[in-house]
Structures are given as C-alpha cells and as structure tokens.
C-alpha cells in the first residue's frame, strides 16, 4: 500500500516540475521578446564613404553591427511603429530597407534617380523622397515597397520633413532659397523665401525650422501666418532639430553644435563635436542628442538635460544620416 502511494507522489512532483519549467520557458521568451522589440533604442548611421550603415545601441552606447547597403548612402528615415529603416543610396539610385528588429536588409527599391532625403507620414503608409536631379518628390508605398507617385517641385529639393499636425510635406529648395509646403493631396500650400542655401529642415506643431548654410542662420517659419524669425548660429549650419522649445543646430565648419532657447531667444551653449558635424537626432526617452561627424567618421553623443558631451563613437567613413535616424 505504501509503495504505490510514494510513486504517485513522485509522479505528481515530476509533472509539477514539468509545468513549472514550461511556464518559466514561456516567461523567459516573453520577456526577452518584449525587451528586444520595445526597449532597444538604436541609431542608424549612413556612412557615405564606405557604403554601410552602422547600428549603435543607445543604451549601452556601443556599436552593434555594420550593414552593407547601396553605394553612397545619405538620407534616412525610420518608421517607428513598423520598425523599418529606409536608407537612400545616391550612388546606386535606390533605397535600402532595413528591418530594425533583426537589423537585416530586407528590400532594395529601385528609383532610377538620386534620393537625397526621406521622411514618412505619421501613419507610416508612405515614404517621401526628394529627387535632387529631376526636381521631384517621389512617394513610396510602404505596403507595396515601390514608387507609386511622383510630384514635380521646385529646383534642387534637398531636406524634407513631415508635419504631423497639418499633414504637410515641407521641402527646402537649396539653390532657389525657398521652402515649399505641400498638403497630403500633394497640392502646393505655400512657397516661401528662406535664407541663403537652405538645407536641413524640421517641422513640428505650427512651425518649420530651416538651416541656411551660407547665412549661418536658422529660419523659423510659421505655418499659420507665414511670419519668419531668424537667429544666428555657427558657420555653415546643416541641420536643425527642436525639442522642448530648444533648438539644436549642427555647425559644419565650426565643429560645434548650437543649443538655442526658443523662448528667451538666446544661445544656451555651444558645444564641440567631432569634425564636420552634419546631422542630428534626439532620443526623447534617454535624453540623448546624437550628431553625425562626416570628417571624423564618428558620432558625438550629448546629454540633453545638462547639455554635456557624453561620448564619441567611431562609425564608418563619412557618416551623414540626413534625416531621422534614431529608433526611439
């Protein structure tokens, strides 16, 4: 009588261990999956000199991987919800699409023209590409992964930004010294003068911010009444980003960034970067500003709470990343 009872207890224990192990395995996968998808913030750096994209983990501040893309990658945009990275290759006239979960190249979209900069709409159904030589803005359908329409715009379309509030595409025409604003149906809303040689552009809320390379200034343009305000920065500014009423501007010839308070209209700080800093993007959650250094083949990382330099990380040759390049 005793023996079978012991056996049954043993059996029960055994099955409990199995259930527990199974449960633990599920838990482990659940958490590791969750961690992978939601918590790794990364910077994608286009290296125009060696045809690669460097991927940097913004939590550990270490380089994770280098991916081969097309020739001379420059422009970039990230679909945050779909976790896709679009990279424009001006040497091969195509777009490399990277899956940001596994960091693998999943598609090459042929354009037949040089893609300068990229932006996506808020819904992430479309990616817009400025076509430098033929003066167009191309629309790529994200579902179909191909160009589905083309819009003729002013000469030398350079930077492009998407304004979520008004669903506008905002484009700089570098050699015409203008900013063009198109609505979601691709109708021209406004063409307005900027400073000399407008390149990088950022747009949020009621404003567009433009870096005027030859004027050493940034123009703030109201999308409501089209009024303009200009402030001076360092030499040859290339791009601008704004967060919490603070503007961050790369000064390519000074090897610095200007941090400008939009409320008090004063420069808060000028900080040293690597050589020829071109573009910049912010990680809101981690309070980080990342700057690409074309001259020193690296990125400079800054703390946006105390405006201090944290680290410089080597990337690839001629790092540029023109556009949004941080997976939040």
């Amino acid at each position: 009588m005793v023996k079978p009872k012991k056996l049954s207890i043993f059996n029960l224990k055994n099955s409990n261990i199995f259930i527990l192990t199974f449960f633990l395995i599920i838990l482990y996968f659940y958490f590791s999956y969750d961690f992978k998808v939601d918590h790794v913030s990364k910077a994608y750096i286009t290296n125009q000199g060696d045809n690669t994209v460097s991927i940097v983990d913004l939590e550990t501040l270490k380089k994770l991987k280098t991916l081969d893309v097309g020739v001379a990658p420059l422009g970039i945009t990230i679909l945050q919800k779909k976790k896709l990275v679009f990279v424009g290759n001006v040497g091969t006239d195509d777009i490399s699409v990277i899956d940001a979960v596994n960091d693998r190249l999943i598609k090459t979209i042929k354009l037949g023209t040089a893609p300068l900069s990229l932006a996506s709409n808020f819904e992430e159904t479309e990616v817009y590409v400025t076509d430098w030589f033929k003066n167009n803005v191309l629309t790529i359908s994200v579902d179909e992964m191909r160009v589905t329409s083309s819009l003729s715009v002013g000469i030398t379309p350079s930077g492009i930004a998407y304004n979520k509030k008004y669903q506008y595409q905002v484009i700089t025409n570098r050699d015409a010294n203008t900013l063009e604003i198109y609505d979601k149906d691709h109708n021209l809303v406004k063409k307005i003068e900027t400073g000399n040689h407008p390149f990088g552009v950022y747009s949020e809320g009621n404003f567009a911010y433009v870096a005027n390379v030859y004027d050493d200034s940034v123009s703030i343009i109201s999308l409501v009444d089209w009024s303009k305000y200009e402030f001076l920065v360092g030499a040859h500014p290339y791009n601008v980003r704004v967060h919490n009423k603070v503007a961050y501007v790369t000064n390519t010839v000074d090897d610095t960034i200007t941090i400008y308070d939009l409320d008090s209209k004063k420069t808060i700080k000028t900080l040293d970067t690597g050589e020829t800093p071109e573009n910049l993007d912010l990680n809101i959650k981690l309070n980080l500003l990342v700057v690409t250094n074309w001259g020193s083949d690296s990125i400079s990382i800054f703390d946006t709470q105390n405006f201090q330099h944290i680290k410089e990380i080597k990337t690839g040759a001629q790092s540029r990343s023109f556009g949004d390049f941080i997976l939040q």
Partner: protein
Amino acid sequence: MKKIIFTLLAIICSTSALSHGPTPQKVQESVTIAASPAKTWDALKNYSEFNKIMKVRSFKDKTMKIKYELIKTDVPFSDYNAQIRVKKGANDNESIVQWTARFYRTYKLNPPIPEGQDDATAVAAVNKIVGPGLAGFKKSVESK
C-alpha cells in the same frame, strides 16, 4: 576578348562613378613630424606657405586646429573647406599633422558631367595640394 571585357567593365565602373549625386568629396592625409605637438602647433600657426592657397577662418589653441577656406579660384573643385590639426605622436617629441579637406566637383547639375568637372578631377586636384603641402610643412618644422 579579355581586353573587351576589361573595357566594358571600365565603362560600367566609370559611368556609375559619374552618376553620383551631389556628394561631398574628402581628402584626408597625415604626416608624422619629429617635434613636440606644442612646437609643431606654433610652427603651423606661423607657416605662410598654406596661406598662398587658403585663408585662415579660425583657429583654436585648445584643440590645436586651424580652419581654412579657399582663396584660389582657378581650381577644378568648389565649396572647399579644410582643417589642419596637430595631434600627439608616439612620444613627447613626435606629433601628427592631419589635413582634412571637404569639397565638391565644379559641375553640380544633371549628368552627363563634362570632362574635367567630375569628382575624380576634383579629388586629384586636392590631392596635389594636400600631399606636397604636408611634406613641405614637415621639412620646414624638422629643419628648424
């Protein structure tokens, strides 16, 4: 047959190089000089040879960097900006001088690009300035 394939390859390679977009070109060269960084930096600030081609835009003692812009106009490149910096060498009496130039080709419109206005011509012209320029500076510092 081999010749034909080679020619075809060369044509394919050269046309793909020509179809590049408006990409800034980079020439970066370094030279090691047998002098302390402080001495080299001082010599660089007082070196007049570079001023025949470029004008000093700014300099910074802290980082030992000089920024230049171009004054020569009859050159096959455009939008030239450069910096020359002094870094510490392998020991206290050695320094490294690095010249980084950023520029574009002269032709910025749609391909086809006219001969002599392409990226390769621009890079070759800047190489001719940077290489001998650094060699001349090295000689000048080390002979003192």
